[in-house]
């Protein structure tokens, strides 16, 4: 009889103690548990065992076999866990504070404000139109009830072009074409770039954006005008805006109004921003003058309408806190690249 079971167990644990790599574990398994393995070999001694002890002996050998197998498995698992731990510990901690290498684009602030207002009006059923920058005297003045020599033509210094056309001084220049295109009833807004021949400073630009809106239908009233202006401006400014109308003179509306909104800075109590009045003058508006409707081919017996003009450039400046209007056309990416959406 060769090695005893106890000796073999002891020997195995010694070997297991020394084993440390995946291959050696496999070697151990073959050495002890393989077909010719040492534990398996114990069964060959079965002949030397008294028959009545054989059953017990077989069970013991099997127990040892299981013990060896589990011990190896445990050690493999242990070694794997250690290795994993080592790899995780060795893994680089990436510096998330490193600057991004992806370049983010940016919109012009006017685009953002314009989209916002367009969405509000689109949601209220207004068509969004677009119009030329170069127009003629008829569309910019004549069709808007501004005849030659009218003082209103003095109020806005117009850029005249070498072919007799001019750069539109207000988005109202599109009113006639849009009335003719759609007829009544009509709900439309038309943002656009306008031009005034004046010198530029922090508050004045010769090139700026406006948005005109018109609504024409049977029985459109001043009450409707107030509703739409209040609703739209409350959406734009994201608060319940109070509005008030004052008489204002624009040849293409009658009656014409200046629309004031409650000052957001002082809440209407009066502060330097609103010249202590509690109100900020925001947009001219009014009931479309019958002469303008007629020029647009609209039946004035049947239809009335309102129109308003919103200064998109001014709105963008108010919304984003832009102090110098010249920044908008500067093309300077250092200031313009922050307008992302």
């Amino acid at each position, binding site marked *: 009889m060769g090695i005893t079971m106890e000796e073999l167990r002891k020997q195995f644990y010694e070997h297991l103690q020394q084993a440390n790599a995946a291959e050696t574990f496999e070697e151990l398994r073959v050495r002890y548990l393989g077909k010719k393995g040492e534990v398996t070999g114990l069964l060959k001694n079965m002949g030397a065992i008294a028959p009545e002890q054989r059953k017990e002996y077989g069970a013991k050998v099997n127990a040892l076999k299981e013990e060896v197998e589990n011990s190896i498995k445990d050690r493999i698992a242990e070694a794997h866990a250690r290795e994993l731990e080592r790899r995780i510990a060795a893994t680089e901690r990436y510096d998330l504070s490193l600057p991004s290498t992806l370049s983010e684009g940016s919109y*012009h602030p006017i685009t953002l404000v314009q989209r916002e207002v367009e969405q509000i009006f689109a949601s209220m059923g207004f068509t969004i139109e677009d119009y030329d920058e*170069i127009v*003629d005297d008829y569309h910019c003045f004549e069709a808007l009830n501004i005849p030659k020599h009218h003082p209103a033509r003095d109020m806005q210094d117009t850029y005249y072009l*070498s072919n007799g056309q001019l750069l539109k001084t207000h988005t109202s220049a599109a009113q006639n074409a849009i009335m003719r295109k759609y007829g009544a009833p009509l709900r439309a807004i038309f943002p656009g770039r306008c031009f005034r021949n004046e010198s530029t400073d922090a508050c004045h630009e010769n090139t700026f954006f406006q948005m005109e809106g018109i609504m024409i239908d049977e029985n459109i009233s001043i*009450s409707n005008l107030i509703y739409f202006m209040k609703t739209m401006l409350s959406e734009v400014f994201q608060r319940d805006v109070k509005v008030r109308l004052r008489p204002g003179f624009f040849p293409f509306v009658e009656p014409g109004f200046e629309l004031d909104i409650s000052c957001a800075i002082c809440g209407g109590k009066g502060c330097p921003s609103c010249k202590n009045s509690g109100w900020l003058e925001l947009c001219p508006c009014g009931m479309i*003058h019958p002469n303008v409707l007629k020029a647009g081919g609209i039946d004035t017996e049947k239809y009335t309408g309102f129109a308003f003009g919103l200064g998109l450039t001014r709105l963008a400046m108010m919304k984003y806190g832009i102090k110098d209007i010249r920044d908008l056309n500067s093309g300077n*990416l250092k200031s313009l690249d922050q307008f992302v959406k």
Partner: protein
Amino acid sequence: MKVSMNWISEYVDLSGLDVEDLIRRFTLSTAEVEEVYHLGTEINGVVVAEITKIEEHPNSKKLHLLELDLGDHTDRCVCGAPNVRVGMRVPFAPFGASVVGMTIGEAAIAGVVSRGMCCSAAELGIADSSSGLLELPSDAPLGKPVKELYAFEDVVFEVDNKSLTNRPDLWGHYGIAREFSAIAKRPLKPLDLQDLSAYDALPAVPLGTIDPELCYRYSAIRADGITKKVSPIDMQIRLYYCGMRAISLLADLTNYVMLELGQPTHAFDSRMVGTIGVQRFTEPFAFQTLDDTERKIDPETLMITSDGKPVAVAGVMGGLNSEIVSDTDSVTLECATFSAVSVRKTSSRIGLRTDASMRYEKTLDPALCALAAGRFLKLLLSIDPGAQVVSRYTDCYQYRYPEIELHFTKAFVDRYTGIDISDEQIEDTLTRLGFGVTRTGSAFDVKVPSWRATKDVTIPADVIEEITRIYGYDNFNIETTMSALRPILPLTVKADEAAMKDALVKRFGLHEVHTYLWCDAKKLNDLKIPLPDNLRLLNGMNPDATVLRTAMMQTLLPVLKENRFYAPAFGVFEIGRTVKGLREDGTANERRTLGVALLSHEKERTVFLAARDMIASILFDMRRKHASFVRVEPVNCWEHPANTAAIVLDGKPVGTISTVHPEVAAEIDKKASLVTLELDMDTLADIPADELRYREASRFPGIDIDLSFAVGKDVTFADVTGPFFADRDETLSGISLVDVYEAEGKSMTIRLSFVSPVKTLQKAEVQSYIDRILAVLAEKNIRLRTV
């Protein structure tokens, strides 16, 4: 314009009403009030005193020691005014009294203690500066507080002139009083006028030719025996509070009448005028105006003449040669109406805008002339009872505005307002505003008053404004409409623009900028780009910014240069308008144009091809066919002759992509790679988007066949693949590039993919097709590489 509430109260009794609230309602009903001033409140305890004795100051030649009679007691003070004299009555501020900016205490003036001060007009806040004491009338009661005698205290408010442009009737206090009468619903008192018909028997003021076109009404009247030189204190205060200054009685009267009625008048020294004419001259000449300035007078300018010689620029300013002087005792008063356009043009031509011209520009009511004359005389005769009228009211009334009558019903008003304003309220408002109203039930016949009938109120919609503004917009409902719902689809150009911007910003990280419609000549010159021959601004202020851009690059390349240190690689874009010359009808050929300018420090080839991929990908996303790129000759000087290509969609060129010509590139950034791209958004909008149609995927595997060609250096991918597309087998599902290898000669490997919807293809089944195409390619000297 400044408005005195004291003056207004002369014509409307506003007692018991809150002034601040009235002014707020004026803003809401008539015109915006910009500022409210409470004047005269600082003056306290100033009384009338008579100088009884003047002594030399021991230490100063300029100062005097005055003894003053205050009625029930006397007082003393040191005074530095040069116009002191015994017997003169002056405002005196004793110890403890206050004037503008100070309270009177005890002070040693050049060593002599003074406990009081005699006041100048400036110290009482009724002049900007004064050279001496304010002289009070010799019958001013001694010891009486000046504030009880004169209206120092007043509430004055200011309205921006711009908000009155359409209301000629609001350029005088009487018109404003009419507004308050309507706002407060209190009666308007009539003007106190001299009856001009009383002088009908007197001789006429000689009038010659009156320009029949530009002078609507010219009237004149003459008064002699004028001895008073100085205006009453109250008149001086009002003039000053309303932004003018007292000069002399006659000049002050013309200003006072103008501020009251809005009608300018002119006072000539009668000695200097003969037969008065209103005419234009055929030759230009120089003329000295009242402000002592020589002005060049053009032939279009309407002039007032005396015996044919110019004496005033009509409606703008009088001449130095006929002005009121210190010994003037006879005045010839002009009350006239001139063409608003003529006065406006004259005023801007000679660069002189006056209180008179501002009013004439607004289209004054000619009826005001007679009122102004009647008012002037009433005031003159009451201030200077010795004066007498020596001519009749001589009136050449050539043009009368037509009377305007309007008809409407309450239903018309309701339609405009959306609320219910009662018949009675409509009638009351219009009546208070001077309209002649005849009402039959809810039908109105309205006669427009002359002062509103020169341009302001011509149609029923104008009357709506009168009714609603007095009713108050704060009292309106806030009400949505009952309009039919209709679908609204975005315009293609707008949708394209939005899609393009989103892709450029979000997918490709570009920056949107705005640039001007015109070229900056200096900036272009810096880039060695010539100004285009294009439409120009005729009246721009900057001579370097007149020519409109024909391409976006004319304004974007300068932006690219200015930002060149912004980042190692960046791009800017703008969707704006370019003007490509004129259309056949002579109008501007305005195009919506996308411009993209890229700067990078990567290889130019990489940047150029990436730009190509970018635009192709965006157009593909917008479902606008497959873009192809066709090499073309450059049109613009910044486009590189070797690498300029047309972007072609559906056979139509829609834009250009190019690298930048070395001459221009060197001026922008010598080291960087630059790429430009322009795309006509209008042309793009005309190309319909492809419809989405479902194509079932084949259930059978396809086969890929790679072919390697040995080609010449200039052979392109398109050259190699073209014949496959030109004669496309129905199972050919795609061609891709595997590799281009340039070492000894150029080799190009392409992959043909075949798939059949009905079976698994075998290589042999497509071989005959491939062989057929290879034969075509061989004719072009493109052959398979032999290994």
